[in-house]
């Protein structure tokens, strides 16, 4: 009962009341007599911040001045609260106000009370700039090696903060390296840990120094602090990563380069450290080593396996996470933990259980699937949706690995469609099933049936419409299309307007593709002519008209009763069937690209006045933007946040893109060239830190090339005038026919000059090299006033060579259906070639071939499939060559005798293009 009477000093605080209380700070007598009260008020102020009742700037400044007066008191606990308060409000106050406490803090920093010194240092680090750091350098440097661990740690941690804030700070702090080095051997574990971090920061940019640091500490074994060893393990891992990425690994981690084997040996020895934290860190570092072989990873796996039965959730959690990731690349190594993994399925921590489950799905063999599925169904009912989603994604992947099991797996997933579950869970299942239909065609018919049953009782409009659309797309191609009609028509009868609209569209697709079904579908469709929803009614009206017209032109003749199966002609529309053309033929270009194409069309000179009719073929070619190509349909492997926030990123509107050719269109002399075919990204012709920074954008026109040179003047006492670039070349392909110099380029500005090249149509397109020289007049100016100090004099500046390659004439344009387009183009102009390439691995060979051809990889063939080691890679490329010739290439790349062998076939609707493209490879 006493509890009820007592009120916490922090309950129901009002900001205004606390601010009122804070006036006590100004009353020096009250402060002296009642430091306790002041402490409470400060804590109350902090509590206000903490509960979101932030002080505004005036209030904060006001209170801040009050608090500074509290330095008058010698009360230790009050001083401690003052430090805390200054740190908290330093961010919200005007920095000029905060600076007034520096003298008080500097005084405390040099006094003989450790507590004061440590705290004053930490507060100072928040408020000083690099100039002041220089002023107090001596004290901080001393504090780093102070006998008190508290002071030493405070100095080190403050230095770590300051180091990153400004490069001037870093310069000062680097001078303390011997003090920092000394404190790594402190008796205080935390000091070791902090010293280690600062030491690394100081040496970070110097690879050799880091490698020495790792070597020193790993061999000497002087670090007592497990946290410091954890850091050392991380530095070692980073060192090894760099070693590999810079190509110095040699023959693996055990017997390769000295750095690699030293580092690996240290990591391996840490697997036997006495602290779990260090052992785990080492295991994780080893498992993340690039190009690690099974024998390198194995010792870590053995340790992690033991950790799986730890009593600490964090240990099981962390170990499970690593094993789940390793199972993607080395499922066999992880498979020996299978028994422990099965035990973890009942782990009270559901994240651990889910990871164990998904890992088992990767490491298990084909015949263990049925047993696993049984375990999963028991398991799924008791976990949250986000974990279920991860499991469904694993099942989907499993289906790729064992296509023979698709019936069981899809059936299993569909069962969960009918159970309880939120939208994102259901959506994941539907998406998985749809992806599988596309990837494993055997699943199509059974899966469609499952989905049909799902929409009979589906509460999510979005999923219903998605499935109806899919039915319209692939239902007609199945063995018995008629069986789906009933399911679709039920939707027309029972659902809301969006679903009804989707359903009539699906019906129309069936009618268009299967002439035999037309009469009955038209009857069904006609019932929707009176639908209360505008969209549904309009769609239906259009469909009925189109289909009835087609039925009149091509009446369906059912096969004779006694016809043999051979005589029955397939149930497909005639060649020029209008319904099929209207309802099935898609747009030749995606809507997104159509929009971009129209924008370019509108912005290019002259086109808006032109009277020529606008058709798809007269629209400008638009290249695929990088965002299009990075669309990831990769399956989340459950590593990281289970069911994490991954779908959110796609929602952002793509940034409005500026047509790079706009600069060319703006020049009247060049307007006659018409529309650009494409523009390259800027190619640097100098290093980025030279006096004049020059880059070149190549604008490709039908029979010209405009080179736009962007010149940046970085010399403050010069003004450049009449800037141009002189080109020289041996080739016959191009001839310089015009030049537009940049008039003036002041310091810090970038100006553009242009060179016009005429392309010789009689010469096949090939790579041309140009030597470039920057020509300009220099006027010396006073940097401060800009006044001229000299007459203009001529100057030259050599640039790097410029190359115009065949790939520059190729626009990266993907096709929707590569296989179909490949057949359509035909092999009349096909060129086949075989090359031996000097690459050590397929990955770099693939990306290099893509770059050389300048084409767009399609069907996700632009990167290697995971787990396909040793198998040849098929690369599908598409593009549009200058002149509007659509061009396709199929390439096979395989490893052979230490090199890469490339077989490539190029097709195009133009007879000379495939040869030019195939010759790009060199």
């Amino acid at each position, binding site marked *: 009962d*006493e509890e009820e009477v007592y009120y916490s000093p922090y309950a129901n605080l009002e900001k205004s009341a606390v601010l009122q209380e804070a006036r006590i700070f100004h009353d020096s007598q009250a402060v002296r007599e009642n430091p306790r009260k002041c402490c409470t008020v400060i804590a109350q102020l902090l509590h206000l911040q903490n509960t979101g009742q932030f002080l505004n700037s005036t209030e904060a400044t006001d209170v801040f001045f009050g608090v500074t007066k509290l330095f008058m008191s010698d009360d230790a606990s009050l001083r*401690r609260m003052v430090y805390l308060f200054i740190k908290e409000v330093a961010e919200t106050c005007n920095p000029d106000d905060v600076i007034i406490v520096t003298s008080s803090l500097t005084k405390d920093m040099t006094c003989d009370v450790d507590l004061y010194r440590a705290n004053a240092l930490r507060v100072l680090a928040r408020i000083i700039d690099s100039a002041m750091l220089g002023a107090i350098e001596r004290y901080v440097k001393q504090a780093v090696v102070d006998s008190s661990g*508290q002071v030493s740690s405070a100095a080190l941690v403050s230095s770590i903060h300051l180091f990153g804030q400004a490069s001037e700070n870093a310069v000062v702090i680097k001078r303390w390296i011997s003090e920092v080095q000394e404190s790594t051997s402190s008796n205080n574990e935390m000091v070791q840990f902090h010293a280690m971090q600062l030491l690394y920061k100081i040496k970070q940019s110097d690879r050799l120094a880091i490698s020495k640091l790792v070597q020193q500490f790993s061999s000497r074994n002087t670090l007592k602090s497990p946290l410091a060893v*954890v*850091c050392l393990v991380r530095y070692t891992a980073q060192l090894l990563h760099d070693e590999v990425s810079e190509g110095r690994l040699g023959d693996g981690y055990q017997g390769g380069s000295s750095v690699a084997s030293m580092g690996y040996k240290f990591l391996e020895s840490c697997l036997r450290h006495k602290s779990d934290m260090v052992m785990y860190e080492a295991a994780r570092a080893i498992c*993340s080593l690039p190009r690690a072989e099974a024998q390198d990873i194995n010792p870590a796996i053995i340790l992690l396996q033991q950790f799986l039965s730890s009593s600490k959730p964090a240990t099981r959690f*962390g170990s499970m996470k690593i094993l789940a990731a390793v199972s993607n690349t080395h499922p066999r190594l992880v498979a020996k933990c299978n028994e422990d993994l099965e035990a973890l399925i009942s782990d009270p921590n559901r*994240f651990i259980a889910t990871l164990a489950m998904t890992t088992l799905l990767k490491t298990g063999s084909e015949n263990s699937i049925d047993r696993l599925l049984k375990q999963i169904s028991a398991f799924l009912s008791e976990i949250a949706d986000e974990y279920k989603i991860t499991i469904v994604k694993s099942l989907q992947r499993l289906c790729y690995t064992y296509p023979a099991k698709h019936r069981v797996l899809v059936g299993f997933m569909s069962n969960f469609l009918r159970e309880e579950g939120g939208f994102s869970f259901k959506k994941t299942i539907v998406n998985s099933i749809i992806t599988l239909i596309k990837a494993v065609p055997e699943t199509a018919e059974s899966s469609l049936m499952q989905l049909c049953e799902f929409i009979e009782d589906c509460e999510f409009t979005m999923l219903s419409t998605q499935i109806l659309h899919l039915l319209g797309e692939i239902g007609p191609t199945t063995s018995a299309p008629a069986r789906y009609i009933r399911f679709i028509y039920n939707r027309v009868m029972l659902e809301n307007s969006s679903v009804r609209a989707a359903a009539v569209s699906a019906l129309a697709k069936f009618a268009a593709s299967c002439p035999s079904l037309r009469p009955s579908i038209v009857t069904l469709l006609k019932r929707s002519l009176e639908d209360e929803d505008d969209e549904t009614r309009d769609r239906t009206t259009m469909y009925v008209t189109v289909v009835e017209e087609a039925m009149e032109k091509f009446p369906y003749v059912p096969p004779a009763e006694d016809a043999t199966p051979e005589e029955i002609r397939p149930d497909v529309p005639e060649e020029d069937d209008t319904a099929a053309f209207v309802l099935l033929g898609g747009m030749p270009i995606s809507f997104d690209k159509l929009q971009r194409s129209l924008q370019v069309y509108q912005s290019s000179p002259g086109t808006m006045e032109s009277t020529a009719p606008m058709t798809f073929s007269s629209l400008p070619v638009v290249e695929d933007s990088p965002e299009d190509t990075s669309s990831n349909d990769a399956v989340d492997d459950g590593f990281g*946040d289970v069911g994490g926030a991954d779908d*959110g990123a796609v929602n952002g509107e793509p940034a409005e893109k500026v047509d790079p050719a706009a600069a060319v269109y703006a020049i009247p002399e060049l307007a006659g060239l018409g529309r650009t075919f494409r523009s390259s990204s800027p190619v640097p012709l100098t290093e980025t830190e030279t006096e004049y920074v020059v880059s070149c954008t190549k604008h490709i026109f039908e029979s010209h090339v405009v080179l736009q040179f962007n010149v940046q003047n970085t010399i403050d006492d010069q003004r450049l005038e009449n800037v141009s670039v002189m080109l020289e070349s041996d080739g016959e392909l191009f001839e310089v026919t015009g030049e537009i110099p940049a008039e003036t380029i002041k310091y810090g500005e970038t100006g553009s000059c242009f060179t016009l090249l005429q392309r010789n149509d009689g010469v096949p397109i090939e790579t041309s090299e140009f030597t470039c020289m920057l020509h300009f007049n220099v006027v010396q100016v006073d940097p401060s006033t800009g006044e001229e100090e000299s007459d203009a004099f001529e100057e030259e500046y050599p640039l790097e060579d410029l190359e115009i390659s065949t790939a520059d004439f190729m626009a990266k344009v993907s096709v929707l259906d590569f296989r179909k387009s490949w057949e359509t183009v035909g092999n009349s102009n096909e060129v086949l070639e075989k090359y031996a390439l000097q690459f050590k691995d397929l990955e770099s060979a693939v990306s290099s071939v893509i770059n050389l051809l300048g084409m767009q990889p399609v069907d996700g063939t632009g990167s290697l499939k995971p787990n396909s080691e040793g198998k040849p890679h098929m690369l599908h490329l598409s593009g549009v060559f200058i002149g509007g010739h659509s061009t396709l290439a199929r390439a096979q790349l395989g490893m052979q005798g230490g090199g890469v062998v490339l077989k490539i076939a190029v097709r195009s609707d133009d007879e000379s293009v495939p040869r030019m493209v195939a010759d790009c490879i060199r």
Partner: protein
Amino acid sequence: MVISALPPLLPRVDAILILDGEGNRLAGKYYGDFLTSTSSSPSTTDEEKEPSSKPNLTVEDLRSSFERQLQTKIQGIAARPDAAEVITVNNKTAVFCGGTAHGATPSGSGGDVRVVHVGPNTESELLLAYLCEGMYEALGHLMGGQTDRNMVLDNLELVFLLIDEHCDGGIILEVDANKLAGSVLLRDEEENGDMMNGAGAGAEQAAAGGQAGGMPAMNGFSAAGFNIGMGARGLQSGDITIAQAFRQAKAQIIAGLSNPEGM
């Protein structure tokens, strides 16, 4: 490469939170740029969550929304003081000690309060657990073993100081529970060696403070010290008077400390 993301080279925490059983933040600190700008906040898959693109979302909104998500994941899970639990939330790893399980009444050795450390999802779970366990133990010392909502709220001042001694701008300063409690109670490092053997820090301090300051009513304080000591061992929890006595004791400690030691 097997694991794409390497752990951060400098171990840092993104936030330290002290939450009550309902997930209300009693105290806490966010570090670095975690949840400071509305644009960097990752959206959630939870449909009922407000979209992150909402223009007038304040930092405080982001934080409380994060804490709500956190709470839905940790509620009903009790973590032993020496075995922190781990969950992932919003692409962060969160490690916590304390709390009560589903259905259990908030009694027993610990309280319903949870100490949560939030770190990047590439940070080692074991490392975060080590930090969290250290701080939770220190909190236990400071609260006399009674880490429940009221006790923490009554002693917020100590809790603020604890967080500050434990972590500076995201970098871990000290993990050892005894040293942490010692620093918060303004004891010198040298004395820390032989303190805290069984009894709560506050209890010893109470006695020390009483003697040093020459305060009256010594008997009362030793009684308080005794009770708190018992509380720390988990023998006599739930006794209301402990909290009361401790509160008074602490006020005296600090008053007592400040006189002889305050320069």
